[in-house]
């Protein structure tokens, strides 16, 4: 196949429809950037969940003698075996709970002591009359939820039980963050969806115009027996060029977002959250599910081009 002709055609085709191609490229660029940001936010949510997964658990502290919470549940002092059984049953019966683990006074104390030593705040644990002792440290249940969204049932059930001192629910703070992420994710995807649809319409219009401009050539090519692929090739290449430029621009914007937005700004200011890294960026480019922009861009221009040229170029 003589490619020189194809490339000459490609060049004239790109020039002839320059404004149309620019419109396609810009729309594609903005929509793919939005789609990519949506993917990054989704990855961010996954990353955060993965690493904060433990903290998504609910900690149920049991009463100690002279409990600092002064909760009416602790009126009888140190939690009794009966109370503990009742609590355990409530946890086991809840359909919101995936699993739970008991943490004894000693285990909880050891863990806290270790953490304090690491942070150099062990003073309260030491000395002749320490503030923190094993006696004063509460036993607890670590309750792992099936989904972080559903915990109201188990929390309200446990809150009223004798022997339960405090329920530490870190989902509230994290839940807000995940909520924002969800809004961002769907917001950018919906925006991307509309713009991608606009890009699709522009692609079809561009092809229609290009086919019209080249109708004499196409008629003669068909007549002298050029293959359908050969006739369609300039159209496909034009679409591919538009897609490549659009994808490259979007990839650049996403890289800038990752570098200046995430690495240089967000991860410095918000340290308790793990942040998306360049691996996630790569996923936003070439991931399969959701499709990355390197897949999305060419698919959006090439598939309609293939379908339309079949119509216009049919032998």
């Amino acid at each position, binding site marked *: *196949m*003589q490619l*020189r*002709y194809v490339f000459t055609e490609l060049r004239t085709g790109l020039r002839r429809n320059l404004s149309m191609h620019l419109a396609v490229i810009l729309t594609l660029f903005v929509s793919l950037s939005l789609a990519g940001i949506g993917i990054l936010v989704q990855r961010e949510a996954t990353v955060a969940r993965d690493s904060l997964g433990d903290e998504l658990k609910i900690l149920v502290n049991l009463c100690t003698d002279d409990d600092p919470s002064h909760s009416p549940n602790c009126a009888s002092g140190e939690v009794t075996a009966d109370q503990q059984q009742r609590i355990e049953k409530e946890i086991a019966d809840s359909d919101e709970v995936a699993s739970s683990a008991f943490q004894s006074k000693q285990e909880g104390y050891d863990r806290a002591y270790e953490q304090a030593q690491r942070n150099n705040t062990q003073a309260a644990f030491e000395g002749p009359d320490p503030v923190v002792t094993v006696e004063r440290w509460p036993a607890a249940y670590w309750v792992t939820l099936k989904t972080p969204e559903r915990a109201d049932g188990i929390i309200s059930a446990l809150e009223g039980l004798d022997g339960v001192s405090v329920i530490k629910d870190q989902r509230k703070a994290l839940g807000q963050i995940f909520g924002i992420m969800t809004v961002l994710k769907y917001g950018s995807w919906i925006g991307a969806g509309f713009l991608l649809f606009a890009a699709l319409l522009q692609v079809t219009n561009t092809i229609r115009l290009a086919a019209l401009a080249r109708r*004499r*050539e196409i*008629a*003669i*090519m*068909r*007549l*002298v*027996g*050029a*293959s*359908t692929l*050969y*006739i369609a090739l300039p159209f496909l290449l034009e679409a591919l060029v538009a897609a490549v430029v659009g994808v490259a621009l979007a990839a650049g914007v996403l890289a800038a977002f990752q570098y200046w937005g995430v690495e240089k700004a967000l991860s410095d200011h918000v340290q308790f959250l793990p942040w998306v890294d360049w691996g996630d960026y790569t996923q936003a480019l070439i991931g399969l599910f959701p499709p990355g922009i390197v897949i999305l861009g060419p698919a959006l221009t090439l598939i309609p081009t293939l379908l339309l040229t079949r119509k216009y170029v049919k*032998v």
Partner: protein
Amino acid sequence: MIRFEKVTKRYPGPGRPALDQVTLDIDKGEFVYLVGTSGSGKSTALRLVLRELRPTTGRVHVAGKEINRMAGWKVPRLRRQIGTVFQDFRLLPNKTVTENVAFAQQVIGKSRREIGKVVPETLELVGLKDKGDRMPDELSGGEQQRVAIARAFVNRPMILIADEPTGNLDPATSAGIMNLLGDINQTGTTVVMATHDHGIVDQFTKRVIELDHGKVVRDEASGSYGFQH
């Protein structure tokens, strides 16, 4: 080379068919006029040969193949064996004479070397050796038709189809075109030419197939245009 077996072609919509049970047989190397009044089905018959159309019923054989049943992807190969010329020339206005002729070779993937050799040869054959660099609008009608014939013949097809090739030309120019088509026929190429031009048909005597309302009403080995005109 070309055989129609009871070919009927009905266009969408009401009315009689454009071709009605046409059976005809054209051998390799023949020169055939297809004549008949406007609307009698001449162009339809030619487009069936090119497989631009498929018959409603019946069979069309070209070069030993039943083309009405041919798979779509094989059609380009069929068309490479057929050259086509029209009344309105259909040259590309933004290409020179040489480029117009070379186009027919480029788009089927011929090498640059072959194009460089065959295109000048073909231009010489049609008598346009010195006009390769002209644009189509710098040529007379007759010259433009010669370019079109060169383009149709440049791939050395087995069949040349001409749909009223002299329809836009004066008698003297037409005679030149007929001589050219005669020369091409002499090389062994089968020529099928639809025409209204009885002067031509009577002057360059060949086989005549006459269509009337889609039916073959006359097929003479060495005929005239007919008395009714």
